[in-house]
């Protein structure tokens, strides 16, 4: 079983990304859980969301304390929340930042794999505005999920809610992030 913990701020779409990821994993035939940290939902306040992905039925119902992957959607949480705490030594820390991985390693002291991605910039350049979708692409790449399943699910889920033009922009942002994270993951 793989466990993922997302760190974001209310309104950044970490919960949405976590839910779309669960749908993607279902397409792979996995058992999944996706849930936010249950509490007051306030725009801008630190929040967490969780995923579990398994080949067998998932029975545990607690929060995730020792994730395989920690996703930091908002870089300012690196200092505020210490999101790498509990992250497994052989895990992956995925950070939305313009900094290089080695700089994040210095700031966090995390010895495992670090994948950095400037999701803000990707979202800005592709015209989508939200970092959550590029971060979703990065996590899917780190998990080794086939691109086709990622694209299919995002087209289906987001296609119902947004225009064809905006969907195309989101798919482009997703693909850019997926490829960048795949490259960064394969490097090590």
């Amino acid at each position: 079983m793989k466990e993922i913990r997302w760190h974001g701020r209310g309104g950044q779409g970490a919960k949405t990304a976590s839910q779309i990821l669960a749908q993607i994993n279902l397409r792979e035939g996995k058992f999944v859980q996706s849930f936010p940290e249950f509490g007051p939902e306030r725009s801008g306040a630190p929040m967490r969301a969780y995923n579990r992905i398994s080949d067998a039925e998932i029975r545990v119902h607690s929060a995730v304390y020792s994730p395989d992957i920690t996703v930091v959607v908002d870089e300012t949480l690196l200092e505020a929340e210490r999101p790498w705490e509990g992250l497994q030594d052989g895990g992956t820390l995925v950070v939305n930042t313009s900094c290089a991985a080695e700089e994040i390693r210095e700031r966090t002291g995390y010895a495992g794999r670090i994948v950095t991605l400037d999701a803000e910039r990707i979202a800005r350049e592709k015209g989508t505005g939200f970092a959550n979708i590029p971060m979703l692409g990065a996590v899917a790449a780190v998990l080794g999920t086939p691109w086709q399943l990622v694209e299919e699910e995002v087209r289906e889920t987001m296609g119902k809610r947004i225009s064809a033009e905006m969907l195309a922009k989101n798919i482009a942002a997703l693909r850019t992030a997926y490829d960048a994270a795949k490259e960064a993951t394969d490097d090590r």
Partner: protein
Amino acid sequence: MRKVMTGHKAVAEAMRQIEPDVVAVYPITPQSEIAEYYAQYVHDGVVHSELVPVESEHSAMSACVGAAAAGARVMTATSSQGLALMVEVLYIAAGMRLPIVMALANRSLSAPINIHCDHADAYLARDAGAFQIFCESAQEAYDYTLIAQRVAEHDRVRIPGIVNLDGFTLTHTSQVVEPLEDEVAKKFVGPFQAVHPLLDVDHPVSWGTFAMPDYYFELKRAQQAAIEEAAGVFLEVQRAYASLTRRRYAGFIEPYRMDDAERAVVVMGSTAGTAKVAVDALREKGDKVGVLKVWLYRPFPYAEVAQALAKVRAVAILDRAFSFGALGALYSDVAAALAHSKLRPTLANYIYGLGGRDVTVDQILRAFAELKEARPETRLRYLGLRE
């Protein structure tokens, strides 16, 4: 087909397939989403139910009672304070033998105010005369909503039914659920047959009558007979559902790795799943441990619980609410079940997970560790409490 959905969506899907004539509901966290989903179905014309947007839960249950007596198939849903406000009328629904089925998205009771999960609301309704089922997963919440409807409406039963699902932990967690096809679900639940409906003006009847000391006792005795009947009917309906779906549902309780267990926990709701993970971990190390999950809480399956625990050396009973001034409610039931057993395990009672305190595998492991040293005692223990 397997889908990803929350516990709330799973319950709403079952309600859509049941398509009751009347749904009277008032929103409260965490239950609100059920009301929202159902309102959407009504708005979209997906169902032809009459949605009654009442001004309180007292009114919700009152509308349910009126509609059920009139001859309608009726459902509702609530949580916490909403159930507290409903309880007065829930007793009336049970006394009038009205088969109203409701989802209870379990949440703590005030004060202090808290929106998160525990079982204080279910315990509050314990003696109301409704049968109660507890669910481990969103899949179970879906399945047991369909099952509850058939149990409640069975002519030997005709009492309200409550399907408990842990607030947030199940209601707001997206997980894999495999619902039935609409036609299959509808066929399983079957058409509704009203009994002596008020609106049948050709056969006038009285509902909600007065009973003096010369009849009240006998009527309440008949009500006890009805809820006892619910046990047998539950088994029949559960068996039919299991053969239809191939789900492994068999009995009032679900024993997990109990065959040679020396230590066990008894638990209801989503924590049963977390306890199974703890048991798997201990079994890897050779410890003989198991979980006894209670599906049917009311009527309580005394004989089956006693039999399942007869050969166990020590048992921890986990209550997700206080029964203030007494030991836990589930503990008291399990202790009563074992009162006449020759081989009695040593019992320990834990209060856990109040107000949404996260329930972890480590907490269950601690209970199992403490059971090694368990001595007969009459006191409460706690899991996950800072002291």
